[in-house]
């Protein structure tokens, strides 16, 4: 017996995974009998898509909370800077000639406050969590796309990467051979 599930997310994930696997097992045989041609691969791998979607649920929630925090940090800094600007401009004359001075104060205050924000540990941590979660979601999206591409009998990202790597190594090898041949030719000529 598995240990009790602590929170809502784990409960949701466990339940979804359970039924995902069950439905997949229950339907795999009849599906493989009826699905032929390009849809066969897709039918076989559809479980992978739902698995990725279930797994991504927590990441979507995390991503949204990091994004919210990101905009909160920017918003709060903006409001504070604006308050400082308002205090400062009360000291300068309210006429058209002072427009340039107002612009300078606005830019300097905002520049200073925002670069201070970017320099904080909390901004750096949250921003990197945001980017990291985005990468995680992108990975899942790639996996889902791979399932779709496989079913359409097209090369997946992984397969293309392998080709790239192979091409890259071959090009390097050819360049090396070419240069050693040139050196040998020069030696022979002299």
């Amino acid at each position: 017996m598995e240990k009790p599930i602590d929170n809502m997310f784990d409960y949701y994930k466990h339940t979804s995974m359970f039924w995902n696997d069950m439905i997949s097992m229950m339907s795999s045989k009849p599906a493989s009998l009826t699905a032929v041609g390009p849809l066969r691969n897709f039918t076989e791998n559809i479980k992978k898509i739902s698995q990725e979607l279930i797994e991504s649920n927590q990441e979507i929630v995390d991503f949204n909370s990091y994004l919210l925090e990101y905009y909160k940090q920017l918003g709060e800094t903006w409001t504070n800077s604006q308050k400082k600007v308002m205090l400062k401009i009360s000291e300068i004359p309210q006429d058209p000639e002072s427009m340039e001075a107002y612009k300078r104060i606005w830019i300097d205050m905002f520049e200073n406050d925002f670069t201070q924000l970017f320099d904080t540990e909390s901004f750096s941590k949250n921003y990197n969590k945001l980017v990291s979660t985005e990468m995680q979601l992108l990975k899942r999206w790639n996996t889902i796309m791979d399932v779709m591409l496989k079913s359409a009998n097209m090369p997946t990202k992984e397969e293309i990467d392998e080709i790239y790597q192979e091409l890259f190594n071959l090009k390097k090898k050819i360049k090396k051979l070419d240069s050693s041949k040139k050196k040998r030719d020069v030696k022979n000529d002299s």
Partner: protein
Amino acid sequence: MTLETSVNESIIGDFLNFNRNIAEIPSRISVPHEVKMDTCEYDVVYKEDRIRMLHYKPLTSKQIKTPLVISYAIVNRYHIFDIDPKKSWVKNLLEQGFDVYMIDWGTPTSLDKFLGFDDYVNRYLDNCVEFICNESDVRKISMQGYCTGGTLATVYSALHPEKIKNLVVTAPVIDGWKDTTVVSNLTKSFDVDKFVDTIGNMPPEFMYYCFSILKPFEQGIEKYLKFMDNINNEKFIESFLKIEKWLDETPPIPGQLFKEWIKGNRAYGLTEQNINQFKGITRNDNHPYAQFYKGAFSYAETINNSAMPFVTGNRNFNPFQLDTPIVAGKSFFDYAKHYYEILKDIQDNDKYEGYFINDEEIVKTLDLRSFFD
């Protein structure tokens, strides 16, 4: 009851002018992507994968024998060194009689994401140097590296000193732990492996983000307000468009290279102590390296602190910012002595000519001819 409001006439005038400028901009200036970026003429003499090597046509009849190759930064394009005839670094070198080559690292594609330091240094850079040596019938060349190109040039010179007569490095990215900018703060907890494994090459958009947080409002807002204010100033607009186009052409960085770059300090076991040892500053104060290093450092600092708006008109932007010059090879001592003497001049005489830099004199203060012949 009558409600009276009064708006100052000059504000209305400014508002109308602004609107008129917006409407008239397209008919007054070139479409940005049609702006010509280069000043000096060149031939493309070598190509390999995405990279190209440019050879500039000479401007003087008397030529310095040792060719000079510029290894430009890989985070943006080489054009900034030759973007304006009045401030062109390349033109200035050509006028001094240098035989100038420039490496254009090109725009990497997904196929190039496996390119690392070894490919850039021991293959591309080495092949370029070999080509120049064969073409010019010399055994050694001079190399100038700028920014990340300076890092590649430094690594190359350390590995192939037999091919380098002079190494001049400006703003090289070497002791990165000293970086205290907001960009360094942002990368503190950056998971470079995950990033590169998922995306491949480092996209230019991410570079833009990193650059823009350095001065978000000056670069993101004030710059464009200035553009509107100067819409009738043809010279300003021409320069502005060139810089904007240059900024917009930032290429991606090959994933593997980016990974090695970020993790480099740990991977190669480089510490502040052994880098300083390389520069000679942890030895006792009487060691000549220490004096020359300090001289070079102070010179670079003096130039940077007095940086003037010579390209964009932006008071804080100095694309030719100098970092401590690191010079290796045969001319190291002469070159360092040159900086040491300049430092002494600065200290002894406030009116030293090279101290104050206006928009046309910045490259002329770096007259290096005597060290390259």
